């Protein structure tokens, strides 16, 4: 294995060619040989023949494969860029081909559940920390790779593809992973920060989706910029408390992957989470909204998981709790807002 390993230079692997995966693959391809994995054969065909993926431009130097083994054999470093709903499945499909020498960086913002056979969120009702997995914890649990990192920050794919200036955070317990990520991605238009608190960075990316739904609701109710400022600041405080309870540090939430991403998402009218909130405020029900969306807005799932977690953690998270009541218990959104305005937030900042 060692011999095979050193025989020829390795490519950089990207798993998943959705909008974010394609954008990252193209950025990586500026300096390196890149191989991408797509599950569907026709997408692989499309990339290899006309260099597009579902119509998105793909750098012509990029090769595609639908064979996880080939990707793992050709690459030492893999970027997992798949939607969170498919994440566990994809990681399991790759697990038999991954070895301890692989470095994995993922860019997926979501949480997975770690429940026993026959259990679901409906049957357990409450969640302990050990029953919730961040995406890096999924990788550690399912594979033998340990050198794992994540990529998070305000990175709207469309803007990245246009080459507009942006930055991201690579978080890992291993300096080696951060340095590799920086070496591969850094460019004149793209800055890459490092952070050793991977859990905190992953949580920042996940929790901000809750606040994004609320931001959409505020816009849908036509409440103006003061209200949005209020929400972003209170949202950040709530993220800090939740992140601490789940094992992240305060610092990561007030960094690029936390506040940075929060501000961007709360202003991005195209985001799915924002849309859910916006349409709720216009009077649609969750079922109506979801039936017209092709992918689930991650924030909806996150609200459910976090609401089940705070029941065991003994903390209050008023925005999440009220969103949960609006989404799943038919509380009118105006009443939730009323409740939040009366909530005794007497202290401005209580975590530093």
């Amino acid at each position, binding site marked *: 294995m*060692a011999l095979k390993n050193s025989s020829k230079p390795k490519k950089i692997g990207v798993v998943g060619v959705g909008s974010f995966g394609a954008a990252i693959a193209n950025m990586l391809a500026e300096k390196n040989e890149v191989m991408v994995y797509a599950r569907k054969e026709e997408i692989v065909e499309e990339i290899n023949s006309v260099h597009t993926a579902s119509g998105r431009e793909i750098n012509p130097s990029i090769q595609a494969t639908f064979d996880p083994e080939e990707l793992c054999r050709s690459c030492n470093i893999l970027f997992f860029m798949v939607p969170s709903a498919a994440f566990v499945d994809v990681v399991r499909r790759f697990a038999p081909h991954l070895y301890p*020498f692989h470095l994995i960086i993922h860019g997926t913002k979501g949480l997975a559940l770690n429940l026993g056979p026959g259990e679901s969120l409906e049957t357990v009702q409450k969640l302990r920390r050990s029953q919730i997995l961040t995406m890096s914890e999924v990788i550690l649990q399912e594979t033998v790779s340990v050198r794992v990192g994540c990529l998070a920050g305000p990175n709207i794919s469309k803007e990245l593809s246009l080459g507009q200036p942006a930055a991201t955070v690579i978080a890992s317990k291993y300096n080696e992973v951060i340095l590799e990520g920086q070496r591969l991605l850094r460019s004149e238009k793209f800055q890459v920060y490092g952070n050793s608190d991977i859990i905190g960075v992953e949580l920042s990316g996940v929790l901000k989706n809750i606040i994004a739904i609320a931001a959409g609701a505020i816009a849908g109710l036509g409440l103006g910029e003061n209200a949005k400022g209020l929400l972003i600041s209170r949202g950040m405080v709530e993220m800090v408390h939740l992140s601490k309870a789940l094992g992240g540090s305060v610092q990561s939430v007030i960094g690029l992957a936390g506040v940075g991403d929060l501000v961007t998402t709360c202003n991005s009218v195209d985001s799915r989470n924002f849309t859910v909130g916006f349409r709720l405020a216009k009077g649609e029900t969750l079922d109506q909204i979801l039936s017209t969306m092709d992918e689930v807005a991650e924030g909806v799932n996150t609200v459910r998981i976090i609401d089940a977690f705070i029941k065991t953690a003994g903390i209050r998270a008023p925005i999440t709790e009220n969103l949960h009541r609006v989404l799943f218990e038919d509380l009118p959104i105006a009443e939730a807002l009323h409740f939040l305005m009366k909530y005794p937030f007497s202290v401005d900042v209580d975590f530093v």
Partner: protein
Amino acid sequence: MDENYIKHRYDPIIPSKEEWPVVKLARERKEFVKKVADLAESRILGLTGKNPEILKEELETTLYREKLRIKQNPWAVDPDDESVFWNEVRSSLLQINTDSSLDKAKRFQAYQGVLHRITSRYSEEIASNFKASHYKFTRSVVTYGFSRLLNAARVKGFKSIFSNQYTLQDKIQITGQTDQIRDLATKGTIVMVPTHFSNLDSILIGWIISVLGMPPFIYGAGLNLFNISIFAYFMNALGAYKVDRRKKNLMYLETLKTYSKEAIQFGCHSLFFPGGTRSRSGMIESKLKLGLLSTAIEAQRANYQNGLNDISGKVFIVPVTINYHFVLEAPGLIQEHLSQTGQERYYKESDEFSTSYKISKFLVKFFTKGSDISVSIGKAMDVLGNYVDQDGNSLDKRGRKIDTRDYFVSDGKITIDQQREEEYTNMLGKRIVEEFHKINRVFSSHLVAFVAFELIKAKTNKLDLFDLIRLPEEDIFIPYEEFKSVCQMVLDRVFELKAQGKIDTAPHLKRTMDEIIAHGMDNVGMYHAKRPLIRDKDGNIVTEDMSLLYFYHNRLHGYGLEKLF
């Protein structure tokens, strides 16, 4: 798991003493000490970035601390020339600092010379003085002495002192993966990591290793034990190297780690108590001291760097738990634990605490009344905490063979990355704690102590631990029937956990609940002046010492059993 206790003595895996790694090491002691000194020196130079100013600062710090130690905390074991040596270091440093004719490179060289003298001295001081003849003698003294005592006590009559009816192995049961550890010890290098509750542990483990037919393991023993010359003799005989906990300076610690790492690479099986010291609370260690553990990972990486990719260069981590009904030092340990965690909230009511038990008295009681000890040998793991098969191959969670070398590879090559290895050490520490919990054997005494304490806690639910411990013992009693039904409930849960492979149990837990309770009550902390649990004249369960009850209860901490209350 196999319920049969191992009662026969195994054949030695390496019959010829000359072939024992520890004997080979003793033969090459001089070269080895020099090698450790040189390697430690270059490690420290690496850490100081070869910057003369930083090196100078480190030298001065070390000098200052050592002079302070000599003045404030001298021990009998300290060599006579210590003051002389450090005075020389001081004058050398002074000379280098004031000599303006030295350029930067020369100055650095001069500091390096001083550093070399220090690491050489430390290395010599740490190195063990193993002598195989002493080892043999010590082993037979321990075995012979123990079994004479045992037979004298058990078989009636004066002549029975020479009877061989009972052996030590009737008292001390060895269970678990004994064949695997013996087998792997012939192929690779073992690092054994036991739990640590009592001062008897090191003697006990030494004896176990010899019963299993393995050559002696080396281990770091506190230098304080060498203060007493008879102990020093025994320790040297067992292959102990010396760890001086007073010396916390960088140079000493790096030399110590280098010694441990090089000894593992040399092929010496090693023993670390990863908790560092005895568990004060009676809980299974949950936070490990990772310093020496990191040397196992470093040694493994270094073996791969040197091209030793087969099993001969592989390091195996073997967790071991030692299970007692009775820990001699429990009163002192729990007191220390409570005063550390409670600080001003904890105070002793009176000072006539029951620590007056002498070790000799304990030994006599131990053999006359009997208090079983079991030692569980866990599954061997690689340095990343993956289980290994009978050929020493690492297996992932799905049973696929993986190569431990891959963990140290970046871009196809083995690389040295200290930060990475620190993370690996953390991971290994967590895995060892997990394994401790899995192979821990529940005794009847653990069960009754746990149930009694939790019941008392549940009845006084407003009180926190320190108030609870101050409750007047006379006021506490638990009706037997209630106690019995709760014991059954907890035991059922323990068996559920056992079915999931999360804990192990002693065979005596298969008896009826009345028998288990009687056995547990008889055994829990049986030789303490104040017993943690007894039955009063009405048959109720009462305690004479809440702190001790807490100590023995803690053995079942960490399994979520508290939630049953």
